[in-house]
């Protein structure tokens, strides 16, 4: 069990890094990577929400959306239990769960851990439209090659968040240096950031083939 979980973590952090290999979460990756301090904040917030979202969407998927005996709605309406709700309600229910979760996390942090809230504050609402969060929810459930267990889904969500944090941290380090360099005028700002990301993705290619 531990070994399988370790494989999942190495796979999502390095081999299938969400930003560099799967192109998920690029907007915050490019938008918030100018300074290292804000990059760390964004990374922490995304990891937190991703882990929670993986847990909740897994429960939603297995107990409400999938057809079968486990379906809670199916106990009241047998016809729903036979067909399931997965085809029609997947996208809507996931995005609503994530949006609600982000709101909830924001309120809870403000009450319970004000210090953390102050450092993450600005980035929390941005996470709703971060496609990495919805992406990890989909990859954990409908688009996963095999059916994942609860623990595996949470670990994959957490690992994906760590992978995002590593990528955005590296990028912010590079961009802090880039700001001091003499770059051709049309390439300044985002274009050169894109090209650097490409080179980083090339470096991360070295990890491919490590995990089957």
């Amino acid at each position, binding site marked *: 069990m531990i070994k399988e979980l370790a494989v999942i973590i190495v796979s999502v952090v390095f081999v299938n890094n969400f930003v560099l290999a799967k*192109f998920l979460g*690029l907007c915050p990756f490019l938008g918030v990577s100018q300074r290292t301090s804000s990059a760390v904040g964004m990374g922490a917030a995304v990891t937190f929400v991703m882990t929670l979202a993986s847990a909740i969407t897994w429960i939603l998927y297995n107990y409400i959306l999938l057809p079968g005996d486990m379906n809670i709605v199916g106990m009241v309406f047998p016809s729903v239990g036979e067909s399931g709700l997965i085809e029609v309600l997947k*996208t*809507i229910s996931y995005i609503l769960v994530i*949006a609600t979760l982000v709101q909830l996390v924001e309120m809870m942090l403000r009450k319970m851990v004000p210090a953390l809230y102050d450092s993450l504050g600005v980035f929390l609402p941005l996470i709703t*439209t971060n496609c990495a969060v919805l992406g990890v929810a989909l990859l954990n459930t409908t688009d996963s090659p095999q059916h994942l267990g609860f623990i595996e889904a949470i670990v994959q969500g957490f690992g994906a968040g760590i992978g995002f944090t590593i990528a955005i941290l590296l990028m912010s380090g590079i961009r802090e240096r880039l700001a001091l360099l003499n770059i051709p005028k049309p390439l300044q700002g*985002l274009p050169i950031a894109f090209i650097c990301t490409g080179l980083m993705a090339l470096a991360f290619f070295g990890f491919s083939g490590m995990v089957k």
Partner: protein
Amino acid sequence: MSEQSNWKEFSKGLFKYNALFVLVLGICPSLAVTTSLKNGVSMGGAATFVLVSSNFIVSIIRPYVPREIRIPCFIVVIASFVTIVELMMKAYLPTEVNASLGIFIPLIVVNCIILYRAESFAYKNKPFVSILDGAGIGLGWTLSLCLVSGIREMFGAGTLFGLKLSGHYEPASIMIMAPGAFIVTGLLMGLFNWRKQRKSEKSMKVYMKND
């Protein structure tokens, strides 16, 4: 509303407000699905359909939606259309296109372009103009997807729309893979910037001459 300003609402999405290269929105799907021209066109078409329909519905329901809860309302409208598109594509498009677009079809929900147009245009304008705006921005995005995916397919596989271009070309498969996407997009964005900067320099010169 005159015909000329209608045309303006439509055409501004093609270059001046080009979603990918000027506004830099919707980058994730633009990079992920542009491995071949076929995928680029299908993705662009799907997103344009969602954009036009959600702009239309948002501008119709605009008087009944209170300001405080407008974002959740927009998201529900968008998610419904994304579900429609997903089921339609599963039914009518070949399986290999569906497989390579994968999770990026449901991810149209969080495509920033669509929410951005709903919030900044459709929520303030009439249905007909909103449709034009959606079609323009969507077409602009589709065209830039075609550009990126065309370049990547040409250099990375030596084909265009699946047809072989030349017999003597050894494909550089790096262009099909992740790094190629970032580098091609970065260079194209630089090209757009260069064009914009040259234009503003020119107008500056004219201005100084007139002075």
